[in-house]
């Protein structure tokens, strides 16, 4: 039955390739707002669902693209494990395929790694309709180019993710969240200083004159670090981190109502700079969110570039300034040639990654 679904995918892609019909690949649609607008006939991945293999002692889960992210997480939770990159959900109904394709990671990212750091292997249907397997289900594998990671975050423009194997990690035994009254400048400095100490840090969030810090690990280590940090205890810390992860935090209220939300990914030590609006700062300083008009695009992009990073118009009704930071010509050329290799007819999510690729 599952095989028939994949054969159906392959046949459909081949037909689309022959007719040059673009396909808009979609899981639960919870991240459809991200990237350039979808174009083409809807291609729903949700029929290809289910966990293929999960052995907690191997620390690897393999699941089909249409599996609900929530189902993967529940299965892991029941075995005392989790996805270390804390993927955002934004809304119920997101799939594993969408998680891989968008490559978005949550609050734990600077301390535990991103989606791509946990992808061990993928099966994809490329733009020629071929089912390809890259990587595998083992922790270390350097045979062939790392196409599994190349597919991660490629927004479906290089292949339709059909299955993925991900590294899982044990859940921390204990967690605690502390809060400090600090200016953004101070908060960024502290988060970086603490990041350089051997302490069980697992998330930071600077907002409204406060720095929130999460500690995760063995109970005695979390207690010792909490005592060392000081600050005040936040009783329901997990609710805060989930809200930050999913943009349900009040900071994102205007963005949820349609105001343009910018994501500035920069060097963690970049100074706090007034860019015309309040910022929410995650990832030990390396990720800065703000709501700002589209007209600010070039100013924000210049600032991010000057601080070692890039600016994404993460969510907006009108994406006209371009969602992704433009690439230098040499990189853009490589992107175009890779796109042509995996999707020679240009039918997979065309334009979804424009400016950032294909």
């Amino acid at each position: 039955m599952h095989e028939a679904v994949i054969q159906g995918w392959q046949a459909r892609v081949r037909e689309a390739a022959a007719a040059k019909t673009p396909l808009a690949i979609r899981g639960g649609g919870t991240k459809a707002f991200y990237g350039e607008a979808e174009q083409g006939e809807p291609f729903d991945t949700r029929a290809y669902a289910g966990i293929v293999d999960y052995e907690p002692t191997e620390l690897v889960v393999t699941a089909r693209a249409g599996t609900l992210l929530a189902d993967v997480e529940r299965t892991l939770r029941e075995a005392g494990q989790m996805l270390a990159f804390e993927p955002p959900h934004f809304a119920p109904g997101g799939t594993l395929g969408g998680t891989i394709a968008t490559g978005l990671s949550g609050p734990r990212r600077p301390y535990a790694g991103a989606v791509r750091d946990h992808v061990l292997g993928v099966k994809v249907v490329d733009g020629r309709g071929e089912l390809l397997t890259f990587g595998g289900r083992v922790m270390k594998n350097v045979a062939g180019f790392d196409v599994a990671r190349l597919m991660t975050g490629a927004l479906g423009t290089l292949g339709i993710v059909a299955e993925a194997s991900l590294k899982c990690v044990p859940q921390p035994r204990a967690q605690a969240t502390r809060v400090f009254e600090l200016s953004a400048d101070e908060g960024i400095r502290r988060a970086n200083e603490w990041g350089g100490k051997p302490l069980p840090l697992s998330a930071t969030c600077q907002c409204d004159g406060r720095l929130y810090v999460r500690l995760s690990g063995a109970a005695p280590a979390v207690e010792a670090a909490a005592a060392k940090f000081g600050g005040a205890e936040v009783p329901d810390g997990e609710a805060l981190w989930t809200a930050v992860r999913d943009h349900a935090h009040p900071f994102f209220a205007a963005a949820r109502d349609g105001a343009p939300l910018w994501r500035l990914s920069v060097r963690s030590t970049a100074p706090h700079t007034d860019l015309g609006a309040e910022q929410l700062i995650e990832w030990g300083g390396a990720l800065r969110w703000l709501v700002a008009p589209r007209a600010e695009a070039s100013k924000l992009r210049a600032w991010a570039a000057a601080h070692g990073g890039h600016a994404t118009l993460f969510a907006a009704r009108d994406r006209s300034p371009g969602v992704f930071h433009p690439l230098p010509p040499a990189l853009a050329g490589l992107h175009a040639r890779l796109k042509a290799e995996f999707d020679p007819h240009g039918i997979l999510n065309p334009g979804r990654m424009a400016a950032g690729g294909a």
Partner: protein
Amino acid sequence: MLPATVHAQLAALLPREALLTATEDTRPYECDGLTLFRETPAAVVLPDTEQQVVAILKLCHAARVPVVARGAGTGLSGGAMPHRDGVVLSLAKFRRIVAIDPLARTAVVQPGVRNLAISEAAAAHGLYYAPDPSSQIACTIGGNVAENAGGVHCLKYGLTVHNVRRVRAVTIDGEIVEFGGDALDAPGYDLLALITGSEGLLAVITEITVKLTPTPQLAQVALAAFPTVESAGAAVGAVIAEGIIPGGLEMMDQAATRAVEQFVHADYPLDAAAILLVEADGTPEEVAAEMAEVRRVLAASGATEIRVSRDEAQRLLFWSGRKAAFPAAGRISPDYYCIDGTIPRKALPRVLRQIEAWSAEYGLRVANVFHAGDGNLHPLILFDANRPGEADKTIAFGDRILELCIEVGGTVTGEHGVGVEKLRGTCAQFGTAEIERFLGVKKAFDPHGLLNPGKAVPTLARCAEFGRMHVHRGELAHPELPRF
């Protein structure tokens, strides 16, 4: 031989001592750490600036001369083996640590910087570079990125790919490109991941920003003895099943412990069939909690003896044997051949048992010393190349081990790369369509196939040639290809 015009252009570009063409000068470059494969290059160039690298690549590109980048030449798959008509581009002079940013916890380094030198330079800030290949005193960070090198600490702290932020490189047409950046992600495709482990096929790396990790306050290692190799293998799974990710989880069998004991006195229990080294690191509280659990699990898994390092000196002593394992193998046998497959942890007992059986069948001794926590095997096949037929027998034995790795769901190379050595295994591991895409990726960067040709990705013709003799799981890997 280089075309005369190319030679003249290189000579005009580089100081005399940075262009080697006499055989006695190029001979030291004829192989890497895998000495079974050798080739003398037409020339060796040793530039010391990025502009020189750009110029060398442009002129080689124009004249269609192959270029093989080279770090320290410690690779174990023939990746840096020269091309007969090509140029070896050594990065040995790119030895500068450009900057260390203790607050951002990053180091900007040139590719010829030795792996260990980064940690030494960062130590003053309470930081280190986590991936620690056993060759870390010699191998370069450029070679590490090109191979996606691993090490003892990688189970907990990740491989090279997890610890590199930015790579600056020059493509074959002389364009400077940067992959990744100072932020935690970059726009577009993840070309940083693609360049990592690309074995010098896509671009020549000229600068790298690595992530530095806070030095743990404390580290302790448990040394556990097991009566059988299988029980040690099963204990590895049991540790992980407890939700423990040790800082290091390594295994050595008796052949390995006995070999190293003659070489460094690491105080290993020599009557044990296998030992495990399990490291806990972190805050003193974390280490105490983790060590208590590790002890409990090891005992429950049948360890006959467990010793926990009492101080730093003893910790280093316990590790000294593991670190000296390869040279020790070289002491007890005229030659050894290091295999590098990765398997799911659960397959450890089965695969180790099979290797033992084959060892008897081939009449070749094997010492096992490896990254058990990652399932990354390094059976060292001990042989004597001077005995007729023994090298061939060794290679056949190695191939069978790699086939078994694929069969149990693993890979033919966990960290040493494909190079020239595992082209055959790569054919067996991947289908035709995947190999075609690899060749397509190569072409997207290097349309004329000039960077390290003949390595890492086999042509389909090569696979067909191998396929004739290679039947995998009862089926041909590339049934659609014509056979000769």
